């Protein structure tokens, strides 16, 4: 499965129509990113349509996290272009990108452990007015009733699952139109993983577009409209979630036979 699939129809959605980068919610065009001298991404192109759940699967070290963070501008891609809602955001400073309607739940959650649940959430909606902020917090608490119980507790004292909910809740505070998720299932108990994926589907129903990076390929492909497979920093397969679940190569490499 290491041979490159030529022209995987990167901008093709599953219905067969081709999306121009300007028409997609998110599009990466020939993106290459280096960490120092190490090339982490090699000529990656992909697209996420409005309202889709698109997943990116791949082994540890394939470059999934780098790809996700390159969208946020941290690290900055060496070459190639990133489009968000028809506008090019390549090279835009991270903070500015993140104010423009997309949010990220980064690898390792990175909640502010010394701050309470309330303060963590408030940071997610930093640029809102007080009323907007309160309304967003209420919205997140409705989504995660568990966070309501922990409202005044410090983030660092909560369980992994609760911290993951907090990280997602914080990302939702700014009412993003596109949510980037980096391995939300990592290190969580199966029952909690189930809850998290339920929430992701629920978010999509509410109109949020989802780009999901996962090692848990089975779960991810089950809820995804489409998926991309990343190997050694390169997209080697792109298809609908169902088709990838049934693909022999994918089954062998990522689904344990």
């Amino acid at each position: 499965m290491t041979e490159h699939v030529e022209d995987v129809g990167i901008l093709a959605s599953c219905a067969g129509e081709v999306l121009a980068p300007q028409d997609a919610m998110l599009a990466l065009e020939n993106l290459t990113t280096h960490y120092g001298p190490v090339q982490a991404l090699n000529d990656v192109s992909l697209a996420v349509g409005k309202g889709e759940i698109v997943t990116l699967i791949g082994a540890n070290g394939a470059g999934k996290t780098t790809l996700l963070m390159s969208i946020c501008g941290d690290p900055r891609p060496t070459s190639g272009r990133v489009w968000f809602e028809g506008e090019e955001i390549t090279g835009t400073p991270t903070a500015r990108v993140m104010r423009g309607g997309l949010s990220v739940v980064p690898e390792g959650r990175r909640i502010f452990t010394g701050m309470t649940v309330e303060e963590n959430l408030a940071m997610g909606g930093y640029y809102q007015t007080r009323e907007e902020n309160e309304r967003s917090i209420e919205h997140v608490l409705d989504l995660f009733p568990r966070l309501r119980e922990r409202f005044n507790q410090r983030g660092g004292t909560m369980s992994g699952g609760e911290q993951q909910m907090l990280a997602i809740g914080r990302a939702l505070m700014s009412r993003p139109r596109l949510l980037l998720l980096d391995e939300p299932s990592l290190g969580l108990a199966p029952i909690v993983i189930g809850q998290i994926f339920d929430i992701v589907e629920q978010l999509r129903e509410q109109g949020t577009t989802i780009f999901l990076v996962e090692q848990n390929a089975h779960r991810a492909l089950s809820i995804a409209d489409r998926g991309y497979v990343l190997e050694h920093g390169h997209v080697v397969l792109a298809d609908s979630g169902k088709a990838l679940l049934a693909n022999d190569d994918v089954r062998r490499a990522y689904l344990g036979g």
Partner: protein
Amino acid sequence: MEEILYFLQQVINGLTIGSTYALIAIGYTMVYGIIGMINFAHGEIYMIGTYVTFIVISALGMLGIANPFFLMGAALLVAVLVSCAYGFAVERVAYRPVRGSKRLIALISAIGMSIFLQNYMRLAQGSRDMAISSLIPGGWEFGIESFAVNLSYMQVIIFGVTLGCMLLLSTFISRSRLGRACRACSQDAGMARLLGINTDMIISMTFVIGAALAAVAGLLLGMYYGVVNPYIGFLAGLKAFTAAVLGGIGSIPGAMLGGLLLGVAEALTGGYLSTEYKDVVAFGLLILILLFRPSGILGKPEVEKI
């Protein structure tokens, strides 16, 4: 009885100096907390604050204004504003361009800035000692016949102003929106940026707050000692740095505690041993804390961020 009163006197003197150390130490600790570097030009900001106090009081005095509280208020306002401008500029000129490079480079830049400011002040104001006239003399005395404890009005003002600044800062950091962003940045600046927060602005603000507090300390100590020269920033800066490390660098309550402890330790050394040993004890303390508890009294052991 006499011994107790004598001890009390030393503690009062120690807390006076200690509170100003604490004010300066907060600037070190906040900057360290947010960008992980020691701002060695911070003592110079304090020195500039003292000079501005001297200039404002002298100038207004020449205009015939004599109300000590008006003079002090005016000096405070101008000193804080001028120092804030310096604090902001120092970060912009000396630190922001080298942010992200090796720690040693930022350190050298900081020391360079410190030398520059010291010599710039020496050129502008001369290297002689300048006297700041004593605006608020007198005080209370209490005790027994053979020994009386002195508590000067100026000391009470120092406690009061310091306490006020600390309360203001604590409220700001724990309750306000900007204060919260400040804490978030010092915990994980990269994450704050991923939430859309302009971390450069937060860093600038940290420098400005530190400079404002250093200016307050400069005014208080300037009026307390009545002298200023271009070199006072060096020792005061080192002492406040020691206080910050003692309390746990990166921790604001730690800087407050460290400052007070250091002041009292110095005063007790002066009172029972000899004033000449004051600095020996202060920096001896720094060495001990670095050897046995590098994270300081209230600091958390450093965890390497991945």
